[in-house]
Every structure is written in C-alpha cells, then in structure tokens.
C-alpha cells in the first residue's frame, strides 16, 4: 500500500502525530471542561434564542400583523431569513459530498462541522415558513396526506410545494449522512469513556458500531453513494428555492439566471459562515494542527470563485434591467431605480459587502490571514443577507400600479425572530462543539500517513511510512530501525 503524496502539496495535519494523538486531540474538548468564553458565548446565544422564541409566541398568539408586512409586501424578513439560512446550509453538503467525489482530502478536517452547520442552519430556515403560516399547528397540511377536506391534495405544480419536498429531503439526507459518518467517532468516545453515564450515552449514539472490516467496506460504499446523491440534491435545493421567485411573473424575480446564481450565492454564503465558525472553533478547541492556514486558504479560493459568479450575475441583472427599456424593470433590485431610490442604502450595502469586500481575497497575504478571513466572512454574511432582502423588499415595494407602492419597515418582532434564530443556531453549534467529535477522526487517520507533516517530511527523505516490525520478545528485526517514530 502506498501512502505517497506529492511533496508540492502542503501537509493537512501538522506536527508529529500518531493515530492515538489524533484520538486524544479530538476528544479533549469533549472530555475536558468548558472554559469561561464558552459559557459567555452560550448564555448570550441562549438569551437571544429565548428572545426569539418570545417573539415567535407573540406572533403566533396575536397574528402575522405584528410583523411589518403590508398588503404589497406580503413576505419580507421571513423569506429573506429563510433563503439566507438555507443558503448557509449549502456549504456543508458541498464540503462533505462534492469534495468527496473530487477526492479532496482537505475536506476531512472540516466536513463534520460544516455538516453540523448545514443541519442547524436548515432548522432555522424551516422555522420561517412554518411561522409565516400563522397557524403552525396546521403545518402538516403541506404534506400530501389523505384527508377529509373533500380529498383535497397539495398542488404539485407549485414551487412552494417543491420547496417542501426539497428542504425535507435535504434535511433528512444530510442528517443521515452526518450521523453515519459520526458512528465510528462516537464508538471511539464510547470505548474510552470512564464515566458510566457518558459511556451509556455514547454507546446509544454510536448504534453499537464495532468497526468490522465488512462494516468499513459498506461504510465507504454508503458514503460514496450518499455523496453522489447529495451532490445533485444540494444543487436542486437552492434551484428550487430560487424558483419560488423565478416562476412568478414579477419583474426582477422572473429571471432565468436565478437557479445557477442562487446556487453559487448559497455556496458563497455557506463558505463564509464556515470560515466564521471554524476561525473561532479551531482556537477554542485547540485544533490548529488539523484546521490549518491551508484549509482556510482553500475555502477562500472557493469564495472567490462563487463570489465571482454572483458578481457576474448581478452585472447581468443590472444590464438586462436597463436594456429592456421597460419602466417596470427600472425598479428591480439591481437597476438605476434601486440605486437612486429610497432603498439605495440597501443597494449599496449589497455591492459593498458582496462584491467589493471579497475581492480582497485575491491577495495571497489576505486569504491566508485568519484575522482578515474572519472579517471578510462576516462581511459576506451581511452582504448575502442584503441580497435576499433587496430581491424581496425592493422588488415588491414598487409593482405595476403606482398606487400600490409601499415600503417595508420591520417591527421589533421581525428583528427579534431573526436574532432569535441566530441565537438558536449558535446554541446548537456550541452544544455540538462540546459533545460531538468535531473532526471526522477516523477519516483523518486514513490520510495521516499521506498528508501528515511528519510522514510527508520522512517520505521526502525516502523513509517509508511503514514502521519496522518490533517482535513481541523485544528482538527488533533489523530492517529499517529508523522507521519507528517514537522509541
């Protein structure tokens, strides 16, 4: 078996690590105690989450009238936040599925957390359409269930129903993909747990994973097929989300470039959120040897690419709106009308955060800097939120009839629910970071010899990765004594 990898490639695992060191490094945050910063972050997130839940109860109890919606702008922050959260989710599946198909080894350090982010983000996304129903206890009506309303079925012609199917398939498949990958890592924690309660919990979570050769063979096949299924799935999800707009006949929404451009935007914002989360997590959990500068740089390169696609899409939208010469097109979200109208601040925020700021990543120094990456990732998160806000609020604020022109002002409830979902997201992520193996340790162990710094250096010197055999009676076979890493 060859563990050779070209020396041009930078190592993915830094330092002098054995398989056991990887185990130790990854369970440390779980077996150790949380520090003060974790508690501060957790309580702030919890407070935000509870505030958001309060606003949700107020909305459900009183009615959707407590939001800033009006008869012209019938959905605004709710759908903005929905699309924003779904978009953020996309990076997780991209990293775990698409990069698996492309055999990108660097995905292994970040796929677990990126997928966790996906699942938690899709939870937040799902909340908004359900609350917007006004009577969330009837949410099951979106499913094609036999019923007593005169056999009234759901409308399969509607993109909103496609969304129901796309999002629920996406959430459930991502969850299963994530959990299947977690089984061997839960088993590892289970087998070294000392406290009986902890052992019980992880035994339950690991589904009794034993790591037989046949299990691993199936595990790898299942991962590959799931990746093959999840890749078109993730592209379909945001395509269908974009069809919520693109299949309507509103100027500014009725646009054939929406599906590819929404997918690129989703990956763009998702990677930005991964950068935000991992930038902090690698420090807090002392996993700097696994989530390295190179991982950050690779993700920044994906951000430049997808950000570039988004920029070209903006330019196209702007040009086409102008080129039609139609007065109705002159108030789409990317048009002269938008740039000079009452929403100009939102228009320029979009350009600044989403188009200008990411261009800094062309500089190698900046895209390899943790600090800059963090700042730019926050900017992109804001920019992508503005993109959805602009598409929805600006387009709806001026329709075909000038007498219906109206603007959207969010109420404290709109703001509260949005902040609440951010809190909820971070509550879930912080709990995850304390209880789950945040790096797919079994997978990282498979690349240690080919991509670990220690083994790569030795390979360059011509020392094979296979250690010398030490006989049980302490009589070392003199094949290549230098191979034994630790005496």
């Amino acid at each position, binding site marked *: 078996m060859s563990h050779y990898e070209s020396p041009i490639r930078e190592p993915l695992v830094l330092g002098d690590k054995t398989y056991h060191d990887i185990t130790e490094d990854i369970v440390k945050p779980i077996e150790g105690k949380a520090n003060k910063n974790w508690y501060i972050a957790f309580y702030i997130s919890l407070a935000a989450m509870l505030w958001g839940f309060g606003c949700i109860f107020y909305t459900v109890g009183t009615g959707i009238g407590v939001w800033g919606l009006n008869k012209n702008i019938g959905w605004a922050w709710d759908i903005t936040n929905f699309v924003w959260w779904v978009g953020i989710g996309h990076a997780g599946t991209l990293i775990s599925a698409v990069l698996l198909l492309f055999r990108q080894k660097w995905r292994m350090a970040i796929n677990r957390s990126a997928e966790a982010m996906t699942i938690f983000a899709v939870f937040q996304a799902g909340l908004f359409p359900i609350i917007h129903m006004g009577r969330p206890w009837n949410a099951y009506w979106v499913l094609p269930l036999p019923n007593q309303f005169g056999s009234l079925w759901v409308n399969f012609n509607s993109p909103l129903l496609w969304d129901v199917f796309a999002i629920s398939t996406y959430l459930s498949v991502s969850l299963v993909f994530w959990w299947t990958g977690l089984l061997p890592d839960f088993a590892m924690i289970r087998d070294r747990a000392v406290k009986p309660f902890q052992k019980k919990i992880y035994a339950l979570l690991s589904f009794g994973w034993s790591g037989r050769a046949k299990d691993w063979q199936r595990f790898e096949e299942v991962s590959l*097929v799931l990746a093959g299924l999840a890749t078109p799935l993730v592209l379909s999800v945001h395509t269908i989300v974009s069809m919520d707009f693109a299949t309507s006949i509103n100027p500014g929404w009725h646009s054939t470039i929406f599906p590819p451009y929404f997918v690129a935007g989703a990956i763009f914002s998702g990677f930005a959120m991964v950068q935000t989360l991992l930038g902090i997590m690698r420090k807090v959990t002392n996993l700097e040897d696994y989530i390295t500068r190179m991982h950050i740089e690779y993700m920044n390169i994906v951000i430049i690419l997808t950000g570039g696609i988004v920029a070209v899409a903006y330019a196209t939208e702007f040009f086409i709106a102008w080129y039609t010469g139609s007065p109705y097109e002159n108030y789409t979200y990317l048009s002269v009308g938008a740039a000079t109208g009452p929403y100009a601040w939102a228009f320029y925020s979009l350009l600044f955060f989403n188009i200008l700021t990411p261009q800094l990543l062309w500089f190698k120094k900046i895209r390899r800097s943790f600090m800059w990456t963090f700042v730019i990732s926050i900017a992109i998160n804001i920019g992508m939120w503005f993109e959805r806000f602009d598409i929805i609020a600006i387009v709806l604020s001026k329709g075909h009839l000038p007498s219906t022109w109206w603007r959207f002002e969010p109420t404290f409830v709109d703001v509260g629910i949005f902040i609440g979902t951010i809190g909820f997201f971070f509550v879930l992520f912080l709990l995850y970071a304390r209880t789950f193996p945040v790096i797919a340790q079994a997978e990282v162990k498979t690349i240690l010899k080919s991509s670990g710094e220690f083994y790569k250096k030795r390979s360059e010197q011509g020392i094979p990765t296979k250690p010398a055999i030490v006989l049980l009676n302490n009589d070392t076979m003199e094949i290549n004594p230098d191979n034994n890493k630790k005496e």
Partner: protein
Amino acid sequence: MESSKVIHAFYNDDEILLDAVKAVKAEHHQIEEIFCPFPVHGLDKAMGLAPTRLAITAFFYGCTGLAFAIWMTNYMMIEDWPMDIGGKPSFSWIENMPAFVPIMFELTVFFAAHLMVITFYMRSRIWPFKEAENPDPRTTDDHFLMEIPVKDNVEELTALLTKTGAVEINVVDKH
C-alpha cells in the same frame, strides 16, 4: 471445546496489518474478523471479502422512489381531483409532467438515500441500543484486531502472527 477458542492478534499499524493479512492468508488460515479504527484500503480484497452490493440496492430504491412519485402525482393531480391551476393541463400526466420533475427527483433521492442507509444498518447490525461487539476498546482508537479461530495449532499461529508484527496475542474463549 477446542473449536470455540480464538486468537486475538493486535496490530498498531495499517500497513503492517495488511502485510500480516496476506501472510496469514498465504498460510491458509481462516481470518474470522478484523476490527479496525478506520478504513484500511485494500483490506477487504486482502481478506477475500466479497464486494458490497449496497450501491446496487440504492439504484433499485431510487427507481422505486421515481415510480412512487409518478404514481402519486398522477393519482393526486390527474385522477382523484384534477384542478385547473393557471391553465396547466390537469387531464394528462405526461403534459403536466414538467411541473412534477422536481418532485420526481426529490423522491428518487429520498428513497435511494434512506433505504440504502437502512439496509446498511440492518446488514451491519447497527441501530440504537445495539451493544457494540468489538472485543477490545483499543480497536476504535489506534489498534487493529485480527480474530483467527484455533483448532490445535496455537503455537504455529502464534509464531506466525508474532513474525508478522502483532504487538499483542491473546488466546480467548469465544462466548
């Protein structure tokens, strides 16, 4: 009860393990099981395990999902309760089909992914509340465990396994 005895040979390196498997196989000993902390590429071939057919099941599950989606959209939208929605053809499934493509796609993926994973869990006997069966906790950390049934060849096997680089060899009663 000689036949219920097994040898547990521990290895601490994947490459040494792979060579050991080949050596044990070359001596025509039966390898009952190998427990690994992570997948070792080429191990299934070296052990002589048959390839898994899970991908094939996924294909058929996907076909089932597609067929289900076609049946469901046809029954609900065309047969049971046709409705005029924006003038879309409610009388013919094939003419209304473009609007059902997203549903057909999603259900294909849904069926293929979930049923394949359930099949995997059933075949590998993993589910909630299942007790783990790896004989030693080190096999989920950094040790590989090769289980070989013994008849009356303990010394011979021990010598062979020692030579291949086992770091610990135990003879244990199974069950």
